[in-house]
């Protein structure tokens, strides 16, 4: 999995952005809420002064604000909120929304037929399928139940008997949100359990027989398993009767030879996991051995994307560059290298050597030996002193996570002599840091790496826990969509509220593209322009990068209008939650990487913030609305 710089942020770094507060999530949240309040007051004032005249209008707005702080917030009763939540919950249940769970199970059953069993990485396929299916299903459902309920109550006037009780607007809004989130939870739990069982059972298989067992030197046995689920393994068994198969399709089996000479092949292991990575800081050396910030650039992959992480600073135009990390390349057969510095290298964390996962890219400047792949080497080095191990060569596996274990005791040089080194005593400095150097061994070929390409793996979590976290992320999205749906339904009719919520979700999903478009307009990169210009180009069948072929005035008008539209879209997209990032947690689970706690905390905090925002907006709309009109 390929992570971007902001994925590594801790919760605090994300919230406060030390040294760059303008980019912080906290500032963005505060600006958003303040803006919502100010805009709300202005719009409220305009509407009520149109209705009652300027003086009365002011009082109306002031009264609503006073009511919120003096009566409605302090008067909000937990019992009433829960009564309304229970009602919303019962309503949804008695409308038989739980059928969707049944539908989901049917989808899973059918999916069993269509998910390709010949896939190289069936675990990824299964996990990303169930998570994506659940995600979109739950979001669609949250959209439907939240947007239609309140308008229906107003339309068939059941709301009359509610608002003529001492029920605050705060309670109506909170009750709905909590009730529908409850419904969503009720649906998500069985869907999650069904998905988990589906993935685990779908990947389970047993090989029963062995074939071609040959004895090699030292009493070791080499053989093959039978062909099950479109694959087979080769295995080696040590003289003590214990052995492992090779990794095929992301899993392996334990093979034991029993005393009576029969072989037992265990269930698949290693397919479903949650690696906890420990990332290091990366720096590059260029071909002559000088420190280089980025490594060699072999393309323009970093051109677009990643603006979103700059928050308000990007929107205000202070930060302009793309924030996407690119692979830095290391040239083979030179002094070029990628140096990773890892923290907290202690014997407690790595008692049996250093488990290291490598997923690097290869760039070939000539075809070379296409069968064997490029070769690289890893060297363990003291960060400050010239002590380093001998390089450990390996063949680059470009499309999988290559798992290795670096030994604690290794031969190397301390600058004067070659001897056995102990990693913890010889290669780790006082701060507990150790470096690992990646080099390419093939001349004129290149290996590409980013910070996330190579990491130590001190421990693992259970797959079940990781799935739980992935579902927690879906739950948060569901809560957010519900809050937005309820918010829109306080002042729009059901279908319109649903479309508005759906538009927000879609715009949230395409926020990065909007940022890209704005960036191109800002810096004058020709990429097809804004919506009107793009439409003109499509109709004229013009290429994206040519000059817009209309007369000067028309071009001026089009570009100005486009800039206006794109800036407006940008403003909306900036104020919406970053849903792609939240959906992205599925990628962690599918890649077998433990979902970072910081990431989940960020999502949870952002969700809470957006729910608060939706709550405030809903309150004012409901309060200022004539229920019986």
């Amino acid at each position, binding site marked *: 999995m390929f992570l971007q710089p902001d994925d590594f942020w801790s919760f605090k770094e994300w919230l406060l952005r030390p040294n760059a507060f303008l980019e912080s999530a906290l500032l963005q949240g505060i600006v958003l809420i303040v803006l919502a309040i100010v805009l709300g007051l202005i719009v409220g004032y305009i509407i009520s002064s149109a209705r009652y005249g300027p003086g009365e209008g002011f009082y109306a707005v002031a009264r609503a604000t006073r009511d919120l702080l003096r009566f409605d917030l302090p008067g909000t*009763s937990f019992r*009433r909120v829960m*009564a309304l939540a229970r009602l919303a919950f*019962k309503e949804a249940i008695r409308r038989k929304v739980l059928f969707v769970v049944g539908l989901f199970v049917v989808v899973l059953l059918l999916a069993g037929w269509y998910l390709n069993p010949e896939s190289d990485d069936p675990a990824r396929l299964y996990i990303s399928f169930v998570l994506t299916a659940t995600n979109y299903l739950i979001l669609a459902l949250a959209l439907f139940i939240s947007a239609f309920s309140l308008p229906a109550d107003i339309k068939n006037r059941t709301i*009359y008997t509610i608002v003529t009780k001492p029920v605050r607007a705060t309670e109506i809004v909170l009750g709905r949100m909590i009730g529908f989130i409850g419904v969503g939870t009720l649906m998500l739990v069985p869907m999650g359990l069904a998905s988990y069982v589906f993935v685990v059972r779908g990947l389970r298989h047993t090989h029963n027989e062995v074939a071609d067992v040959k004895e090699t030197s030292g009493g070791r046995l080499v053989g093959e398993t039978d062909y099950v689920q479109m694959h087979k393994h080769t295995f080696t068994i040590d003289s003590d009767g214990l052995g492992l198969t090779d990794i095929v399709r992301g899993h392996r089996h334990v093979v034991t030879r029993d005393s009576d000479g029969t072989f037992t092949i265990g269930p698949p292991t290693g397919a479903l996991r949650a690696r906890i990575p420990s990332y290091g800081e990366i720096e590059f050396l260029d071909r002559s051995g000088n420190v280089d910030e980025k490594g060699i650039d072999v393309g323009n992959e970093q051109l677009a994307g990643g603006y979103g992480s700059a928050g308000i600073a990007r929107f205000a135009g202070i930060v302009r560059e793309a924030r996407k990390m690119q692979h830095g390349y290391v040239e083979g057969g030179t002094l070029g290298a990628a140096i990773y510095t890892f923290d907290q290298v202690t014997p407690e964390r790595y008692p049996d050597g250093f488990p290291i996962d490598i997923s690097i890219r290869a760039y070939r400047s000539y075809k070379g030996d296409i069968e064997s792949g490029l070769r690289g080497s890893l060297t363990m080095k003291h960060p400050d002193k010239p002590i380093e191990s001998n390089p450990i060569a390996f063949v680059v596996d470009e499309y999988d996570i290559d798992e290795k274990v670096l030994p604690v005791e290794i031969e190397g040089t301390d600058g004067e002599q070659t001897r056995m080194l102990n990693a913890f005593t010889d290669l780790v400095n006082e701060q507990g840091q150790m470096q690992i150097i990646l080099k390419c061994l093939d001349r004129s070929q290149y290996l590409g790496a980013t910070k996330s390409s190579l990491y130590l793996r001190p421990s693992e979590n259970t797959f079940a826990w990781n799935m739980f976290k992935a579902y927690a992320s879906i739950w948060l999205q569901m809560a957010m969509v519900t809050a937005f749906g309820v918010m829109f339904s306080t002042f729009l009719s059901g279908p319109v509220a649903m479309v508005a919520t759906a538009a927000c979700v879609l715009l949230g999903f395409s926020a990065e593209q909007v940022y890209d478009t704005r960036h191109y307009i800002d810096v004058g990169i020709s990429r097809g322009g804004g919506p009107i210009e793009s439409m003109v180009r499509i109709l004229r069948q013009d290429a994206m990068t040519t000059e817009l072929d209309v007369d000067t005035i028309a071009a001026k008008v089009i570009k100005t209008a486009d800039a206006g539209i794109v800036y407006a879209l940008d403003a909306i997209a900036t104020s919406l939650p970053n849903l792609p990032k939240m959906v992205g947690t599925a990628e962690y689970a599918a890649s077998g990487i433990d979902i970072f706690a910081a990431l989940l905390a960020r999502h949870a905090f952002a969700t809470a913030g957006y729910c608060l925002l939706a709550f405030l907006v809903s309150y004012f709309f409901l309060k200022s609305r004539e229920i019986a009109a």
Partner: protein
Amino acid sequence: MANDATVVADSAGIQSSPTPASPAVGSGVVIETRNLSKIYRDFWGRKKVHALKSLDIEVRQGEIFGLLGPNGSGKSTTIKLILGLLFPTSGRVLVFDKDATETQKNERIGYLPEESYLYKFLTAEETLDFYGRLFDMSGAERKKRVDELIQLVGLQGARHRQLREYSKGMTRRVGLAQALINNPDLILLDEPTTGLDPIGSREMKDLILSLRDQGKTVLLCSHQLADVQDVCDRVAILHQGELKELGRVSDLLKVQDVTEVHARGLSEDAKIEIAEVIRRHGGTVESIDNPTATMEDLFLNIVRESEARPGARRVSSTGESAAGNTGSSEGA
């Protein structure tokens, strides 16, 4: 069967018309509207309907106040303004001396809407329990109150059925029960007897009177004039959003120069003699007749009798038996 007779004499001399028991009207004003106006506008702010024009009424504590008028006269608009469901275009509504848009007033208000807008997927018990929660009542209190009210509106047998299965009359009863859940001081009833059969209608009216006797204030609006006449102490008559008449029912309906005498057991001779006496005093006899009962009384009597003696009832072609039955109860 000519024992009962009504004497209607056109004379100012005899003052004997029955006055309804005078309610204990307190001096406190419960609802006050000041120059209340409401204009409905369309989306673009253009004026559609001037639904209410400068309404000034006061509803005092302990009285039954009726809002009367044809369809579209502004009755419902007034009630919605009092409840805060609508905001006035100009003027003010004060309920318990608070602005009508404030939610706190609802603690002391019970409201029965025109149709019972209830959640069809709840049972009667769940419905009342839910509304009890909205008043922040404790569990024990809610249970007690729900039992009382289900008893009061006579839904013991149907308390666990979903409202979607209810008849219109039953839904109405649940609606009434929810309006009383908080033991309110002020009860607003929008068309309280629509959808009820005559028995239900009678019970509703009796209940309204008993609420008044408990010292509660009732505001009802209706176009069932008979209902209004039966229960209201004071009425306001609206037409096209304007107040046309306001006053005590007894005063408004009293025909000042006609005298009514009800008597039982008079012979034909006595009737002639009475007519003679009236003539001697300068009055004009308009009619000396047996009174007719209302259809409501007839119906209620038949039902009561049928409950006492189930089985087929003999129906005479002349309808005499029916007349006799109503007559006997009328004198009580």
